[in-house]
């Protein structure tokens, strides 16, 4: 197990290095200059600025420089925020996005698992049909449309929830639901398939043959086994949550990293784009690692042998 984790961490570092390099190169390939007011600057001033930011050096040198700074936790300064350190912004805003993502994930997962179980148990009946339809619909409606509808309905028409913000619990409801339903739908669908699969397994019959009640069979035997593979979807789902939060944060004016990222893209704030990208990648990579390790922890079959065979 330890060896497996070490190996994974190794890959993780490689992946991360690739991300750093790629983002760096991408930024270098971007057309145009990073200086917003380039049109008002004399060439001399421009050169000075370039020198100041180290942009006049050959790219390999810049690259090494960037790596060096990166290792020392320096991601450079934000162009759009008067060269304030990018890390400061990330530290400030990332926790909010993380919280949003986490809550959405919890909301989606819990509800999704529940729906999936119900649907799997009542396979082919009305409940199943309803859940499946719901899941497909929620997977198919882009989260921003859903968010806009929710906001209009619950904040403007009924006025239960505030329009914007990220302060009290009430402010969390709409954004979390907007992102969470997608997660919920995906998980529900997956869970249903797993549930159906598991319910057809021999050990379920064994459990029934022991005379256990239906509830005991489902709760003690079916659900746990059905839930193990769910862990594997959580990795890719993080991606979905991140994508979702990117727009949802704008709609609900949540000061998270997502809205920051969109800003950075629109304003060509390269250091910020790079920093955010790396953060996302890091988060994603770590999530996948955790998920994989977790998978081993939950599934006793993998626990000892270490690593899953794909």
């Amino acid at each position, binding site marked *: 197990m330890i060896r497996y984790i070490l190996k994974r961490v190794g890959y993780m570092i490689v992946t991360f290095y690739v991300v750093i390099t790629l983002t760096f190169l991408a930024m270098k390939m971007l057309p145009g200059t990073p200086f917003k007011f380039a049109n008002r600057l004399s060439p001399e001033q421009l050169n000075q600025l370039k020198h100041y930011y180290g942009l006049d050096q050959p790219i390999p040198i810049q690259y090494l420089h960037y790596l060096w700074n990166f290792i020392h936790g320096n991601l450079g300064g934000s162009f759009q925020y008067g060269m304030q350190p990018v890390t400061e912004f990330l530290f400030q805003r990332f926790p909010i996005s993380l919280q949003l993502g986490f809550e959405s994930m919890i909301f989606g997962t819990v509800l999704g698992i529940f729906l999936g179980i119900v649907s799997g148990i009542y396979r*082919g009946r009305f409940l199943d049909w309803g859940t499946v339809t719901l899941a497909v619909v929620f997977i198919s409606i882009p989260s921003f449309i859903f968010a806009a509808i929710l906001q209009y309905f619950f904040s403007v028409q009924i006025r239960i929830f505030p329009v914007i913000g990220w302060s009290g619990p009430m402010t969390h409801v709409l954004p979390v639901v907007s992102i969470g339903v997608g997660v919920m739908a995906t998980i529900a669908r997956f869970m249903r398939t797993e549930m159906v699969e598991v319910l057809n*397994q*021999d*050990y379920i*019959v*064994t*459990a*029934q*043959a*022991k*005379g*256990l*009640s*239906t509830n*005991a069979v489902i709760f*003690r*035997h079916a659900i*746990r*086994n059905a839930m*193990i593979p769910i862990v594997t979807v959580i990795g890719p789902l993080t991606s979905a949550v991140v994508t979702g939060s990117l727009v949802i944060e704008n709609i609900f004016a949540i000061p998270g990293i997502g809205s920051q990222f969109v800003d950075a893209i629109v304003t060509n704030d390269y250091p910020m784009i790079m920093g955010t990208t790396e953060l996302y990648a890091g988060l994603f990579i770590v999530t996948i690692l955790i998920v994989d390790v977790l998978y081993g922890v*939950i*599934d*006793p*079959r993998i626990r*000892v042998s270490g690593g899953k065979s794909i």
Partner: protein
Amino acid sequence: MNHLLEIKDLNVIFHIFGADVQAVRGISLQLNKGETLAIVGESGSGKSVTSKAVMGLIPNPPGEIATGEILFEGRDLVKYSKKQMQKVRGKEISMIFQDPMTALNPTMKIGKQIMEGLIKHQSLSKHDAKKRAIELLQLVGIPNPEKRVDEYPHQFSGGMRQRVVIAIALACNPKILIADEPTTALDVTIQAQILDLMRDLQEKTGTAIILITHDLGVVANLAQRVAVMYGGKIVETGTLDEIFYNPKHPYTWGLLSSMPKLHAKTDKLLAIPGTPPDLSNPPKGCPFAPRCPHAMKVCTEHMPAYTELSATQKAACWLLDERAPKVDPPTTIGVGGES
């Protein structure tokens, strides 16, 4: 009636894809206390379905018990509610499945899987249940049971898993143990271990066993009575010796003669040509007729009735009708000849 279990005219139907599979078509069986009844027959002949029907585990949908009674100590299990049935399962009647690799929950400790039934049926405390689980593991011959109760199924070999499955089935001292191909997935040497174990356990506990298999060797080893199934029907029943040495049904003949003899020289095996019937569209007459070398016109038209050949043996075949031409069993079944 003092049968422990009596099945009367059981019919089980599966509704799939616009077709109705008549998996079991009017089966009647009796099982007495402490005896071992083997059910043998072709794959798909309804052996497992019959046993599942007894356990009340026919998946519904798509399956249903269309008609029939399953009398356990005189009470009809077919009429039992879910709750009532749960009290019977595992406590009065328990079951072992063919594949030990999949019959255990991979994410639950062995001990817990054994304890579940104990806690449910005997209201033991967790602690006592665990103690009993260790005893049971010891009983089925698992070394070092104190340690192994806390392991997971994947840490056990196939033979050991099958032992665990047996331990689970025996946990509450059931009156009937249904073993559905308990050794098919195992190697011969392990199979021998398991068969030994089952025989020992039966001697100790006096449990009646329904043994389902298609390995006549296993039958000869373990059973006292045999029921031969074909096409959803029982075509012949009798004591072990009656079936092996004096079989009356051509399918039984075929079955016995298609097995090579380890201790005798056989030039050529007697194959049964053709393939088993499609149970979604079963033949009108004798299900074996299309493959029967002695088939007569009547066989394809009418289902033969049982002919009582002895107090214990009966068979359903038109050849036993006095109007039928006399047919001798093939010599290849002459195991009785004693080489």
